[in-house]
Each structure stands twice: as structure tokens, then as C-alpha cells.
């Protein structure tokens, strides 16, 4: 990896200022970024570590009853602390990577990177969460724009993610065993005003809502309601782990299993 300066801000304001330096790159837990730097796929002049910003860490509730998770909160903390309020989200966090990765990797880093196979984007999109940055609030539906693309501007950082808590939810993940990323995973969240289904690992455009499944489940919240649905395989990822057709098939299977897990 090429060398860089490291800035270690302790407040969001300091971080934003440091990110004003030329070719500055924010780093949260670094569990994706450090391997990326090693591979020389990124070569910033300045790395701004968000790890020391206390105001971006931890879990709380706002007046609207939403679950608010600081951007620099690790997967291990989410797994340990949100289980009572939002078990499906805790379960998602508890299955990212491995224990050592979960002790460093953060929700803000995952959401900012928007890896097409990452777990958190599915949870955030299915929950209809709000991504909070240092200068605005972005609805999940407007936030995820494509593979590794988000609505974040240069130098903008994810300071918090706010989750409305669904009546019931489940995250069903088909593991790609070498990388621990999902090959395909589906997050189903059932709210009083409707069902949201988000799919990760499948599409060349990154995480997406499977609206046909949502409509079917709004009419009848039962695994059988989605049993006959086929996801569109035309824009699915094809790689050595599986073809687009296979991922389209898995999308249906994971959705059905997620619903079955909720209905019991």
C-alpha cells in the first residue's frame, strides 16, 4: 500500500475539516478499506479515521421510537445491543464476516461503501431507514444509487442510521463461504403500512427492493404468496460463484424462507 497521512479527529466537525484536505478519504473500521489500500485500488493522500469520534458511536432511541445507531458503531455492538428491539437487525450484524471483523467494522462504513454484496444495505433499505450525514438526512430509498454508489457527496460522512422498527422482520442469507459475504441475501420487514423486501448480493446495480414480492406479500403475507414469483435475472451478477440465473433463483428462495421464518 502507498503511504498516506492519518488524521484522527475526535469530533464530527474535526473530521469534516480534515476531509477538506486534498485527496482525503474517510475510514471507519477499515475492514474493507485497508484490504483495498493494500491492493492499491485506492491511494488517498490523507486517511481520516472516524474510529475515535465518540459522538458517532452507540445505540439509542429518538422521540419517534426509532432505533438510532451511530455511524462508527461496530457490528459487534449492534449484535449485542439491539437484539431486544430489533432482533432481525441484530442477527444481520452478528453474521457479518467473523468475530474479529465485527469488532472493527461499522454500520457507517458498510452503508457508505455500499458493496453490492454487503449485508447492511439490505437491512437499511428494507427497514426504510434514514441515513443521517454531517449535513442532511437521506431516506434509504434515495440513498443507494448503484454498485458502490450512494447519494453521499465528497467529504460527507454517515454519522447515524435511524431505523423505524417493523412489526416483524427476518434476514435470510445464503453465505458465500470463502468471503463470508452473502451470495444472495434477503431482508423482509413487515410494517403496519406494508411489507418491504430488499435483496443484496444479487444485482449488478447493488441492493434493490423486490417490488413484485412486496405486492404479493401485501396481499397475502405468506411464503406461498411468493413461491411462484421469479426475480428478473437480466441484471443479476454472474461470476465464478454463480450465474445470474442462479442468483435470481436464490432471490426467490431466500425471500420465501425469510417470510416462512416470520410466519413460523
Amino acid at each position: 500500500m502507498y503511504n498516506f497521512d492519518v488524521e484522527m479527529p475526535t469530533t464530527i466537525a474535526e473530521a469534516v475539516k480534515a476531509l477538506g484536505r486534498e485527496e482525503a478519504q474517510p475510514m471507519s473500521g477499515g475492514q474493507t478499506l485497508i484490504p483495498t489500500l493494500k491492493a492499491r485500488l485506492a491511494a488517498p493522500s490523507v486517511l481520516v479515521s472516524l474510529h475515535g469520534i465518540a459522538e458517532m458511536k452507540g445505540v439509542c432511541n429518538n422521540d419517534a421510537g426509532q432505533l438510532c445507531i451511530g455511524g462508527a458503531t461496530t457490528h459487534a455492538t449492534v449484535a449485542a445491543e439491539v437484539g431486544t428491539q430489533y432482533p432481525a437487525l441484530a442477527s444481520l450484524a452478528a453474521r457479518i464476516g467473523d468475530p474479529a471483523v465485527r469488532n472493527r467494522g461499522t454500520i457507517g462504513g458498510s452503508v457508505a461503501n455500499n458493496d453490492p454484496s454487503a449485508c447492511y444495505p439490505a437491512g437499511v433499505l428494507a427497514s426504510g431507514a434514514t441515513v443521517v450525514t454531517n449535513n442532511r438526512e437521506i431516506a434509504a430509498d434515495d440513498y443507494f444509487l448503484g454498485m458502490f454508489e450512494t447519494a453521499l457527496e465528497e467529504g460527507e460522512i454517515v454519522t447515524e442510521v435511524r431505523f423505524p422498527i417493523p412489526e416483524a422482520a427476518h434476514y435470510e442469507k445464503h453465505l458465500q463461504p470463502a468471503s463470508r459475504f452473502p451470495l444472495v441475501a434477503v431482508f423482509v420487514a413487515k410494517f403496519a403500512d406494508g411489507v418491504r423486501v430488499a435483496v443484496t448480493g444479487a444485482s449488478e446495480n447493488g441492493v434493490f427492493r423486490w417490488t413484485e414480492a412486496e405486492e404479493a406479500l401485501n396481499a397475502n403475507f405468506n411464503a406461498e404468496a411468493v413461491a411462484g414469483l421469479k426475480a428478473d435475472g437480466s441484471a443479476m451478477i454472474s461470476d465464478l460463484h454463480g450465474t445470474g440465473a442462479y442468483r435470481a433463483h436464490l432471490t426467490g428462495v431466500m425471500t420465501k424462507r425469510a417470510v416462512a421464518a416470520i410466519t413460523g
Partner: protein
Amino acid sequence: MTEVKMTVNGKAASGNVEGRTLLVQFLRENLNLTGTHVGCDTSQCGACVVHVNGEAVKSCTMLAVEANGAEVATIEGQAAPDGTLNTIQQAFQDHHGLQCGFCTPGMVMSAAALLKDNPKPTEADVRHYLDGNICRCTGYHNIVKAIMAASGQDVGTIAAE
């Protein structure tokens, strides 16, 4: 270069590092603590697991400057000063939990992190926790057996050696 100071295995340690210096490089090259291994360098294998402020981390995927001020524990601090192995290390020896030994420092440090949070894990807990620690020799059975034994549980029912 930036000066970093940390406590490693209970002793004060310091040195000058570049921004890109990884924690594992600092441990191995500045402090000569070569028990922490670099296996894959891509955060897959777990040979580099150490504890930072009590939590298991992959020291190949953390910058040395991020550990400034931290309490770091490595494999070198596990045995007593006279060389007596700790419970986990002794269990690895007793149950033949290693062959070539390359992954063992990471296995022992991960096991220590697991038993701190979960003193009586099930066999499934142990296997699941070792997701990020790869061994190419043992087939894992004796590692799992060693960790179960170190937790004071009967290992008679775990797969045969």
C-alpha cells in the same frame, strides 16, 4: 513518521511509524514480537489475531496509529513469565490442537476472546466463533476439543482424534 505509544502485554511500548504501518508490522518489526503471524494479509485467515482493549482484532487490518494509547495483548503475553503455558495453550498441547503451528497464535487469541465472553461454549459456539481462523493442518477437531477442554468441559463426545 508519527510516534505511537501503547501498552503491549502489560509493558509500555512506543515507536515511530508511517501512516500505512499496520499494527501487525509494528508488533513484529518494531517490537520483535514475531509470535503474531501474517498468513494471508487480507483479513481472511486469523493468524494475526491479537486483542486491542480486550477485543479480538485482525492486526493485519488495523493501522498502528489507530492502536495509539491502547492496551494490546499478543500470544507472547499468554504464558506465565517462567514459561508455564496458560490453560488454553496447555489444552492445545494436551489435545494436539496444532500440527504446523502457524495458525496457532491466532487460534489461541481467538479462543481467549471467546471464553472471556462465553466461558462454557457449546461445540457449535466454538466452531462458529472460529469462522475467521483458518487452519490447513488439523481439520479443526482437535482445536475445538482443546478449547472445550480449556473451558473445563468434558470432551469425550467430540469427534475422535
